[in-house]
């Protein structure tokens, strides 16, 4: 018998005795509540932190979350303003080399920079990516509820571009701003259906650690800075 069969056999044997449904041992109300899957999915959004219905409300929430997370967030009216901002960042931080992938927004921003650019669309040298001052990527979505950026291999130039360089710049369009996590998962399902990218990540603030005396330190192993530019 294979290990797989052995383990599955033990599981099936164990499950012959049913377990009490959660909440049934709850001495407080005694009532057993069993909700169906569809009901549960509908409810999750009702239980998580509240998100405004309007676009402006969501932008404000995203901005407040970004401040708490120590991420930079800017909303621009024109694409040009975004290009200018990226250029200012490059000058202020003295970038010598950047990494990026091809995309509508990234191409615009990178051509405005006129710096050596490592493209991560095809196979690239990791050491070269490590030496870049900033990684510029697009994303799948922004999530107001948590201040998160949703990225995947297909929208953000692979797995490493958004984590290896010390500064990650995310370029997003305003229609990419979603309300909450349930919306984000619904988007992933409808967008990728049966052919998901091999890597998807919710990035919430710059890399951090609290491992020394629970003191917040930014830039643990990933980027010390996260800048989100939305147009």
């Amino acid at each position, binding site marked *: 018998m294979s290990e797989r069969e052995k383990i599955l056999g033990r599981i099936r044997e164990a499950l012959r005795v049913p377990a009490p449904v959660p909440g049934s041992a709850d001495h407080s109300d005694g009532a057993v509540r069993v909700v169906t899957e569809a009901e549960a999915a509908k409810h999750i959004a009702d239980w998580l932190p509240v998100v405004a219905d309007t676009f402006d409300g969501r932008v404000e929430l995203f901005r407040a979350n970004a401040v708490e997370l120590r991420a930079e967030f800017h909303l621009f009216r024109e694409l040009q303003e975004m290009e200018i901002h990226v250029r200012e960042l490059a000058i202020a931080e003295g970038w010598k080399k950047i990494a990026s992938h091809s995309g509508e927004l990234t191409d615009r921003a990178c051509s405005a920079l006129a710096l050596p650019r490592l493209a991560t669309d095809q196979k690239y040298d990791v050491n070269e990516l490590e030496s870049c001052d900033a990684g510029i990527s697009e994303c799948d979505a922004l999530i107001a509820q948590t201040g998160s950026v949703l990225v995947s291999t297909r929208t953000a130039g692979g797995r490493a571009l958004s984590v290896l360089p010390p500064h990650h710049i995310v370029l997003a369009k305003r229609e990419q701003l979603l309300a909450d996590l349930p919306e984000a998962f619904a988007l992933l399902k409808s967008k990728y259906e049966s052919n998901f990218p091999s890597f998807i990540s919710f990035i919430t603030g710059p890399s951090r650690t609290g491992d020394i005396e*629970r003191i917040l330190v930014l830039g643990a192993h990933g980027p010390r800075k996260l800048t989100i530019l939305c147009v």
Partner: protein
Amino acid sequence: MNASARQFKRDAERLTRDLRHRLLIRTALKKYEVARDARRSRYQDWQSARQTAAEIKWDAVNHLDKYLEELVEKLESRGTKVHWASDGEKARQIILGIIREKQACSIIKSKVMTGEEIHLNEALEKAGLSVVESDFGEYIVQLRHEAPYHFVFPAMHLVRGEISELFQKELGSNPTNDPEQLMLIARQVLRGKYISADIGISGANFAIAETGMISITENEGNARLTCALPKVHIALMGIEKVIPKLEDLAIFLPMLATAGAGQALTGYNSLYGGPRQPGESDGPEEFHFVLLDNKRTHLLADAEQRDALHCIRCGACLNVCPIYRNVGGHTYGTTYQGPIGSVITPHLRGLQNWKHLSYASSLCGACTETCPVKIDLHHHLLQSRRNATAQRSIWWEKFAFKGFAFLMNRPILFLLVGKLGRLGQKFHPFVKGTRFDPARAWTRSRELPTIAKQTFGEYWRARGR
């Protein structure tokens, strides 16, 4: 008393008196409490969220065979190699086998609690391989050759001075008291390791049956690098971590972050559905996924305590536990500390050897109340006490209770013994604290209360007059 119980007692006694240790833990956990409460209050309905999370986990665990098969089928269809391991020995063999086949010599690890459980590092080092932990806290405890102090905050018991000394000794770095500088030292050392490592080993917080993915939660980015740069990625996961649907993460990810560290969402929540796919520019060429049983099916077979498999390892029960906060993480001598560790360890490693952990509780229920997936922790501790005694009763306890019952059923005898006790207590100060003290186990660290001058019966009669 067996060796693990003796060690628990010895260390607990030492640490509960250690005021410095107590202060350290309180300071660290105070910050956690403030953040957790602030964050939890933003939920529209935390209690309903707990109920939903518990129901999803109940469904997953009670149909574990179905969801595991679905998960494995989906993973395999996208090129992941899935391995099944009944126990630690088998899992170590599988992982060593992959490493040998790839002729790899350097390995980078992100946090894997199941790896701690099966002593993976020791096995890899014994095979002559270089293994580096990349989570900052794990890296620190690895350099100190000790076990994690807390399964979420591994280096919670250390202050920056100690970490600086450790880095000076082990890495030859300059002394510093700045946490940022200390992190930078580790970052620089580890950057090189990621890039040169042949194999990355990670754990998994969840696995999604429906889409065939694993989900890894972290703050530092070390797991992302571990799963992005080396040519081979091995993920080790306990079989109970599977959840049915992708959207279930919409509740588990924020609850894990809030309960575990007082965050809205942890820094990086990443989903991995396979090795590098056609058209992708980076990522490992091979992705191996090892499913570990290691007695989880033993816990599954106990319908009464089955919900302990709902655990998402947030560590919230440790943080609120008055015992954990006084005896500290290392005292438990287990991979999983605190209330959840005390519940599952007897199943994973033998009831008789670990039953003492069921008594490492005041039964206050703070753990049950804080658990985001509603595990009935403190009742399980009581059940374990019952099970351990039913399995192997202690003769003198049985004898003592028989004697007690005999006394209680005979009022005259009971009164007489009470009178004798009252009389005897007058002479107690002469022997108190010496080896002739019959109540020594108590009086060594506590005052003995005096027996009341009057019995209740005497009082009642006197009152009636």
